[in-house]
């Protein structure tokens, strides 16, 4: 059974600092997604990583995927208050006939303070 673990679960950062959120998963998959969720809101897609070594960047966020290590990272550069939200990684189950079944991590609640 595919398990997805994120750490840390809670992250309090100062503005201007850098930090990394880690997403580990337990079985083979080469499709990983990062989502952002603001309080009381739905999920907003941030990155879609579809191959080993994939790296994508948008603004102050950069995501990477290492399928051999079964690890994805979401790196935050020079954090600003607007990045405060909960971030989820999700891994495609990748089993036959189950493409598209996403298994989500527990989420990382990020708070950026001045």
């Amino acid at each position: 059974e595919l398990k997805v673990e994120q750490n840390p679960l809670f992250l309090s950062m100062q503005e201007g600092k850098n930090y990394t959120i880690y997403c580990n998963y337990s079985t083979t998959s080469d499709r990983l997604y990062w989502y952002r969720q603001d309080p009381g809101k739905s999920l907003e897609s941030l990155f879609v990583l579809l191959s080993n070594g994939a790296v994508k960047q948008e603004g102050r966020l950069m995501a990477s995927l290492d399928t051999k290590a079964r690890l994805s990272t979401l790196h935050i550069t020079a954090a600003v208050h607007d990045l405060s939200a909960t971030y989820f990684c999700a891994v495609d189950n990748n089993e036959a006939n189950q493409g598209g079944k996403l298994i989500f991590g527990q989420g990382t609640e990020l708070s950026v303070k001045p």
Partner: protein
Amino acid sequence: EAGVAQSPRYKIIEKRQSVAFWCNPISGHATLYWYQQILGQGPKLLIQFQNNGVVDDSQLPKDRFSAERLKGVDSTLKIQPAKLEDSAVYLCASSWGAISYEQYFGPGTRLTVT
């Protein structure tokens, strides 16, 4: 492009009552998903449709939950009878296909069972 629509946005019911949620996916999206997100957790897939056929309902509590997607477009999710532990946000998502396609989430329906 219009996003995934869901209604109602909020619902409060007493235990043992029934409730239904509605979802209209993005036009042209063949795959539709229903997720349950309990407070403080990541979303959990309940059921996946490909057009109007069920691809995966392994985590749907079939003794009380049912879902249908008539004509391969709109979908409804029903709970009858509701239990306290069903209190959650129910998210609908859609994608062009299943494998390697990004899922777009609706605003969700927040259900409170008292």
